[in-house]
């Protein structure tokens, strides 16, 4: 599919933004403003339980998601009151600016990290209901990810099944540092459910903090932030080695907020080592880089590079693929200034792939809902 023969037939016409070409923003953030906001989405038992335990007054904020950190919100994307990502008006303005036809919201509510399987599942369910009710209903361009409890595969699958009929949820989101390496077979029921419903798996930066983010517990937020990229390396290795893509060849994994530029060097090591130890994982029948190229996608921001324009070009050359990157602003996080979200010439074929074609090819539900058709020749 090339952008040249796509005609966009959306119900709500989208004005071209800064790129002069429609965009699909594959990672924006919406926040649960407070746990109190989830109370309407709890059943009687859990409502009572939250109140009795004071959970409604507890902020379930992940350590890596400190709301007052400068990175958490660009000054112009930081609401006057409340948490970053809690103002629908700011989000709308941003979508207008970039001419985004659609944007995929990740609501990484910290309740996902609770050790109690049941409570974590209730938190995820409530957060997903909140997103549907308070965000998706209000902004038709918005889509969302299904947040799942990562410490219970069974309840995770249940949440996917419960949400799957709402086609505005276009992917499942897991954290890059959850309970266990993502390739492990215990996770496969999640992938099977996702595959069945046409939902890619987003692997988003973040940790449940059930395990040290590195080889031990670091001391500083600095370490926590930098180490996220290392965890993405671990996960892509696990996904390849365990054979997830042999089992689910059509399933896409979308690495969100990964930093992106670590991947080529990492794959060189994957390839080199695999050639020598192939019999250990005989289900891996292709060079790992080929598998990664086919099955892994990465959201664009943040893009770790001193000179992003030059490095983006090099990255595409090294990966030998212009199909892997998905446009994202990572709204409201502060990774770039103004409208400098895409380090490529906006009229280039690469820019169009990143902005639109790649997201469409990644998300079957977006493709269906945007009613994109190939124009007659």
């Amino acid at each position, binding site marked *: 599919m090339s952008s040249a023969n796509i005609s966009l037939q959306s119900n709500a016409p989208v004005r071209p933004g800064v790129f002069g070409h429609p965009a699909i923003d594959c990672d924006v953030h919406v926040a649960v403003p407070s746990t109190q906001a989830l109370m309407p989405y709890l059943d009687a038992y859990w409502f009572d339980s939250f109140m009795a335990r004071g959970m409604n007054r507890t902020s379930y904020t992940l350590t890596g998601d400190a709301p007052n950190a400068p990175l958490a919100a660009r000054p112009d994307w930081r609401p006057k009151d409340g948490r970053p990502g809690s103002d629908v008006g700011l989000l709308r303005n941003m979508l207008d600016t970039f001419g985004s036809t659609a944007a995929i919201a990740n609501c990484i509510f910290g309740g996902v990290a609770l050790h109690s399987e049941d409570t974590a599942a209730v938190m995820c369910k409530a957060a997903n209901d909140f997103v549907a009710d308070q965000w998706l209903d209000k902004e038709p361009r918005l889509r969302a990810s299904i947040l799942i409890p990562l410490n219970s595969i069974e309840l995770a699958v249940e949440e996917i099944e419960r949400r799957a009929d709402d086609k505005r949820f276009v992917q499942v989101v897991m954290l890059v540092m959850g309970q266990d390496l993502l390739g492990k077979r215990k996770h496969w029921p999640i992938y099977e459910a996702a595959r069945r419903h046409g939902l890619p798996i987003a692997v988003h930066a973040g940790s449940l903090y059930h395990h040290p983010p590195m080889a031990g517990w670091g001391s500083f937020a600095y370490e926590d932030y930098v180490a996220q990229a290392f965890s993405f390396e671990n996960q892509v290795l696990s996904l390849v080695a365990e*054979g997830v893509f042999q089992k689910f060849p059509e399933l896409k994994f979308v690495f969100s907020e990964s930093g992106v530029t670590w991947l080529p060097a990492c794959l060189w090591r994957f390839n080199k080592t695999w*050639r*020598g130890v*192939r*019999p*250990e994982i005989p289900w891996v029948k292709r060079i790992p880089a080929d598998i990664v190229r086919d099955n892994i996608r990465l959201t664009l921001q943040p893009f770790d590079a001193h000179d992003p324009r030059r490095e983006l070009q090099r990255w595409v050359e090294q990966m030998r693929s212009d199909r892997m990157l998905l446009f994202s602003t990572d709204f409201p996080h502060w990774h770039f200034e103004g409208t400098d979200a895409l380090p490529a010439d906006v009229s280039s074929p690469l820019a169009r792939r990143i902005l639109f074609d790649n997201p469409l090819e990644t998300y079957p539900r977006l493709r269906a809902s945007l009613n994109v058709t190939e124009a007659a020749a």
Partner: protein
Amino acid sequence: MTTATASKTRFVVARTDEVKPGQRKLVDVGGRPVALFNLNGDYFAIGDKCPHEAGSLCAGKLVGLAESDEPGHYRLSRPGEVIKCPWHGWEFDIRTGQSYCEPSAVRVRAYEASVEHGGELVKGPFRAETFQVAVEDDYVVITL
């Protein structure tokens, strides 16, 4: 000893009793090092230099082919038909020269190896290269 036809050259590379079943021998084929294998009485020959860093495949370990239909399922077939480069473990099929470390992109050349009687070989106008061919013996002949 070599003989050239219109398009092919035949090299007598070993007496059959030099390379018994399960054994291998590094031979010279017109200046090229070639790894010759005897697999249960059948002879196979592939280029000796690993395409990676030119390790001598003839010095590698002969293993079976590890295969899988899906993750967690393991199967070993074709015992002794895969040679692993002694340097970095790249695997090659001794029948075809195809690699298993990157089947679509990496291979070594496979040569046609056959057994012929000395009595047949000495009939032609041959030039002896490395050894004398005797009428009573069998020889491995590689066609290039």
